[in-house]
């Protein structure tokens, strides 16, 4: 029997060590959750994507539910960089958990500028939400293609010394090429992945159920897609992968770790149960104890018998 005193939940994301591998997904977390549980139990804090200026976001209704998940078209309502620096950063700096700031923009220059300006003391890492439409590429998200990914990550890399995470989209047909492009351009980690584009219609009114017509699917329905991409990216790249998509149970967390993720982000599950992240951390520790596993390294990437076939 191993010494279970030494159970170590810490997760290494490049140079960064998180005290555990559980953190929120951008856009599903805010200071409001601090009323519900002690947010310092989390491995990191990841904020809703901010953009440079102030923006309103999309028309309502902004969410609808689907089988085993939801679709959102919140957009990125943003109070801008000044509000972030003056109001949000001081609040989040009070916590011990590392702060990850998600940023986005519609053009290379704006993105680069925002990246430079958010590289402030108190910020631990920057997550680049490159799933946002790029106006210089016909409105296609940067992360849809390897070339635009390479270009934007290269630009961001020159603007900051902070760890830079690139958040990929599952809507691309070339996830592995995009992941490699982000790695080559100097990303320190990959967040895999953002929401999947979907739609829902109200049959009685014959109207789309979202004000924006289409929106991003999240929740358990997309888990197999995010898990597959996590597996593909972890095999193809040397930088750490942070899994994200539909994670709501300990079993889900373990699937992503076994597939090769170093850590995971939890989004929609928090809407069903606000305390889920705190529970997952405790459950993960409980599971490691039962299994006599003292370090996550014994789990991460431990998938067996996966000589990948060709899918047809």
């Amino acid at each position: 029997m191993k010494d279970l005193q030494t159970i170590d939940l810490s997760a290494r994301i490049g140079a960064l060590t998180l005290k555990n591998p559980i953190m929120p997904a951008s856009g599903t977390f805010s200071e409001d959750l601090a009323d519900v549980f002690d947010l310092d139990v989390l491995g990191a804090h990841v904020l809703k994507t901010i953009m440079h200026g102030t923006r309103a976001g999309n028309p309502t209704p902004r969410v609808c539910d689907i089988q085993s998940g939801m679709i959102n078209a919140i957009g990125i309502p943003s109070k801008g960089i000044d509000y972030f620096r003056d109001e949000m950063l001081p609040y989040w700096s009070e916590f011990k958990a590392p702060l990850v700031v998600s940023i986005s923009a519609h053009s290379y220059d704006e993105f680069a500028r925002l990246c430079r300006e958010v590289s402030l003391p108190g910020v631990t890492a920057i997550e680049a939400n490159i799933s946002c439409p790029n106006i210089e590429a016909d409105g296609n998200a940067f992360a849809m293609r390897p070339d635009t990914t390479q270009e934007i990550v290269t630009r961001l890399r020159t603007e900051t010394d902070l760890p830079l995470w690139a958040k990929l989209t599952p809507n691309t047909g070339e996830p592995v090429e995009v992941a490699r492009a982000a790695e080559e351009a100097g990303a320190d980690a990959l967040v895999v992945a953002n929401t999947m584009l979907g739609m829902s219609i109200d049959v009685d009114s014959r109207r789309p159920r979202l004000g924006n017509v289409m929106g991003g699917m999240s929740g358990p329905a997309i888990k197999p897609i995010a898990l597959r991409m996590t597996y593909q990216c972890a095999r193809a790249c040397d930088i750490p992968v942070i899994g994200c998509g539909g994670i709501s149970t300990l079993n889900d967390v373990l699937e992503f770790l076994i597939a090769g993720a170093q850590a995971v982000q939890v989004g929609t599950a928090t809407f069903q149960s606000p305390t889920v992240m705190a529970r997952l951390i405790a459950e993960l520790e409980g599971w490691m104890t039962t299994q006599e596993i003292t370090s996550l390294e014994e789990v991460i990437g431990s998938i067996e018998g996966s000589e990948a076939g060709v899918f047809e």
Partner: protein
Amino acid sequence: MTYIPTTVSVPVPQGLRPRCSEATCRVVSNTPVNGEYRLLTLDAPEAILDCQPGQFFQLLCPAPEGENPFLRRPMSIYGYDKSAGRLEFLYKIAGAGTRGLATLRPDDTFNVLGPLGQGFSMPDDWQNLMLVARGVGLATLAPLARMAQERGRKLTAICSARRPELAMSVELFESYGAEVIVVHDEDGSSTPEALRPLIEARIAKGDVDAFYTCGSSRLLRMLQDLGESHGIPGEIAMEQQMACGLGMCQACVRSFRVGDRIIQRRVCREGPVFPISEAM
């Protein structure tokens, strides 16, 4: 499958008790009221019963046959009693979620999250209160009646309905000492044109310090108008599609007119209760 501990206690911020929490409640009863509505009475833990009228819960609705309501559904508190451990919701069947609620039988358990949002306020200078609402909106305003009685305020409740027998909560309002006026569509007494002189007569008598309303945008516009002309403040409980119910996702925003600016607020967090004058 994997080992999953059944209960894990979650660390709560130092010195702060959770403002809202998840709780598993036992169904005491779930019975039809007035044809269109159902009253769900729960046996609820004390921890979630520090409620204010106007607040709401997010209900994790059970799945009815062939459907799967994924998101929680917001529901106003219809009644609560901390000492008796009782929590009540009055709901109308609209879709999958409320169809799921309707399947609950006594002794079933299900999960609620709350109390959420900001309730109604009742400043000291609001002594004579007038409540005007319609349909399920009356559910949201119901707990105001008790609050008014407890604070010794005078309450007039105008209950609007399609037919007189469909007017909700009349007995409940009366039991808390409110004067109840039922207006309805059949005799035309519920139109803004018919209501307006009725209310203005009360205002003229000095009987109205504040309005409370909920639901109907026609009623809202009338009360905004009356409020502006006569300098009477008031509060409205509003609705919007929600995901988190806590303020995190920004799904539930609505526009408000504040001075000459239009701003967006989250119904779940800054609301669901807002000044009548700012609602749009």
